[in-house]
């Protein structure tokens, strides 16, 4: 028998039922729920008189729609307030633990930040959530993917999902990355290379020296954007860093349970003779800081490069797609990336709102000032991140430099709450999607790493952060 991949091992250990000609029934170890994609699922349960099968494996938070300004009063938007209230009521009625903005607010945050932070996310688990960035949790060697609301209802009622076995795609990043190049640049570089549909129908396993060298938070950034390459999930084999990260967290297994878990987790790696369906290798030392110029995350280039010329593109569909993107982004072909100026800077989202992201930004902006005319904000991923940052006085560093410091949530990544771009505004954003209107109708998003965003905030345009001295004082 040929060796098995990490994916194979997790998939096979979660099969509940298999039948010829039908998708497999897969057990789900952890179901994360948020306010936007769940109300119709709970309504479905009520209509059919069904219960939540495993409330003890289901955890909810409010993140997409919540204000990031003072939350002590009621939410001013009545429709948002209704959706948030619906989640509170649903969790109460169905017995689900909620980290809300009033209830258990101490652990509220972006669903993909709090899962790992609370120790809910563990190696070898199957994890789902009605959110495509669920792939984030794959950083722990879990099989984690986004689902639609009908599937949310299915998991609530059965704790299982029907799935066809996906293919497995090996993406290797070898070598060592340069100074100033972050996990965000690695994943943007990968997406630029394979395209936004390059991994459709697959689960990606990220491997190689440059991946192993990443911290847990950096691995989360990489796995987070797997969906932007079209993959259902992305995963990285757990190692000592993973085990250390999980140990001692609130929901991590304790004592004998931890020892038993660890024994299992150590088996979670791709066997040397396993065969992938597809494979690609990138060289980390060739990856420069990335800046997206278009309207999907595959439209990305090196900071030292230029906006592409549609005239250079042979495929008529792609040419048209570049032309449409440049028109929307109000960019001229061949403009150097560093000539693009920004109006707004957003540091946050499930991609880049964790402690290491905030620390890197703080080191860069300490003692400096946001450029005139630029509006910049930092939105921590969770209340826990917010508290830790404040304990280290990072909030002072940010506000003294001219950044706004907010409450935790998805915020301007998708602009469901009041944090949006005005039409025509250009934003350097650490989020994951530069789709038309994503951050506000007519808004123009450039995806970058936290330190690239911070440098753009200070200068008012994109700069190559490799030329900067990044302080180590904090």
């Amino acid at each position, binding site marked *: 028998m040929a060796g098995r991949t990490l994916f194979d091992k997790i998939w096979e250990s979660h099969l509940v039922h298999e039948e010829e000609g039908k998708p497999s029934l897969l057990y789900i170890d952890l179901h994360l729920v948020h306010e936007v994609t769940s109300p119709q699922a709970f309504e479905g349960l009520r209509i059919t008189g069904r219960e939540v099968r495993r409330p003890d494996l289901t955890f909810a938070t409010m993140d997409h729609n919540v204000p990031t300004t003072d939350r002590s009063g009621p939410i001013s938007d009545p429709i948002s307030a209704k959706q948030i209230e619906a989640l509170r009521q649903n969790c109460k009625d169905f017995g689900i633990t909620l980290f809300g903005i009033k209830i258990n607010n101490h652990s509220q945050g972006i669903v993909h930040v709090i899962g790992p932070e609370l120790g809910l996310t563990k190696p070898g688990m199957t994890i789902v959530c009605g959110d495509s960035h669920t792939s984030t949790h794959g950083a722990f060697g879990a099989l984690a993917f986004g689902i639609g609301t009908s599937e949310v209802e299915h998991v609530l009622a059965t704790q299982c999902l029907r799935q066809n076995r996906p293919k497995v795609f090996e993406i290797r990043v070898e070598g060592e990355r340069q100074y100033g190049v972050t996990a965000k640049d690695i994943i943007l570089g990968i997406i630029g290379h394979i395209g*936004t549909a390059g991994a459709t129908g697959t689960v990606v396993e990220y491997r190689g020296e440059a991946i192993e060298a990443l911290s847990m938070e950096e691995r989360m950034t990489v796995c987070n954007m797997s969906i932007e390459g079209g993959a*259902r999930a992305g995963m990285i084999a757990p190692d000592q860093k993973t085990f250390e990260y999980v140990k001692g967290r609130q929901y991590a297994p304790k004592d004998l349970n931890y020892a038993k878990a660890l024994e299992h987790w150590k088996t979670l790696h791709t066997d040397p003779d396993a065969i992938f369906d597809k494979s690609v290798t990138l060289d980390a030392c060739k990856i420069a800081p990335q800046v997206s110029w278009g309207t999907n995350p595959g439209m990305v280039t090196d900071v030292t490069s230029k906006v592409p010329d549609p005239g250079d593109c042979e495929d008529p569909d792609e040419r048209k797609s570049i032309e449409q993107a440049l028109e929307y982004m109000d960019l001229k072909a061949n403009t150097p990336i560093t000539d693009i100026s920004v109006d707004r800077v957003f540091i946050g989202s499930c991609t880049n709102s964790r402690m290491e992201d905030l620390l890197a930004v703080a080191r860069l902006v300490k003692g400096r000032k946001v450029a005139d005319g630029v509006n910049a904000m930092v939105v921590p991923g969770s209340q826990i991140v917010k508290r830790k940052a404040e304990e280290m006085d990072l909030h002072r560093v940010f506000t003294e430099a001219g950044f706004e410091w907010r409450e935790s949530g998805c915020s301007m990544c998708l602009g469901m709450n009041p944090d949006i771009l005005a039409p025509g505004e250009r934003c350097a954003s650490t989020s994951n999607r530069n789709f038309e209107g994503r951050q506000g109708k007519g808004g123009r998003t450039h995806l970058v790493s936290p330190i690239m965003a911070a440098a753009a905030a200070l200068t008012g345009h994109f700069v190559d952060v490799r030329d900067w001295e990044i302080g180590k004082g904090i």
Partner: protein
Amino acid sequence: MEKLKRIAGKVAALDRMNVDTDQIIPKQFLKRIERTGFGEFLFFDWKYNDDGTLNEDFELNRTRYAGACVLLTRDNFGSGSSREHAPWAIREAGFRVILAPSFADIFYNNCFKNSILPIVISKDRTDELFRLVRENEGYSLEVDLAEKSVSGKGVEFSFEIDDFKRKVLLEGLDDISQTLELVDSIEKYEKLFTDERQWVVPDEREKP
């Protein structure tokens, strides 16, 4: 779920690649807690100008496409967010079949929960259909899911689809009831938690 067997009707052509779910249904409409009321907001940011008037340049606003139930589009349709609001909006706006060279995974799966048939066609076939729609006002197609065939003026072809997904649409199956028939297998699996995988279940948790 409503069954889908045969759909015949007008084709609307959306000549764009990588149409993402943020375009299909922008985020300002995701706050509803019902499954309905999304159709009028389909492609909202493209459909309307900033002053709220209809954007005459947006292809789907053309009167020739009024009442269309088949949507023809390009590669990687439905990419991005997992929001099922996207197929809800598409369905409510009257579309039951989508033809494209490729679809994003989550969107593709969501279609089958909402009585929408996404059909993968070759790039050449896509180009041919775009030409036919352009040249023939009111161009219509007939899609037969049981036969896995599509036919219309100047074209006739068959398509591939997973047998189980086909059955789900043909019979309008509720997959939760089907899974609940396997409750014994689920319970058997859950015994693992007490035997060898206790670490999966959190020891204690905050009160709901």
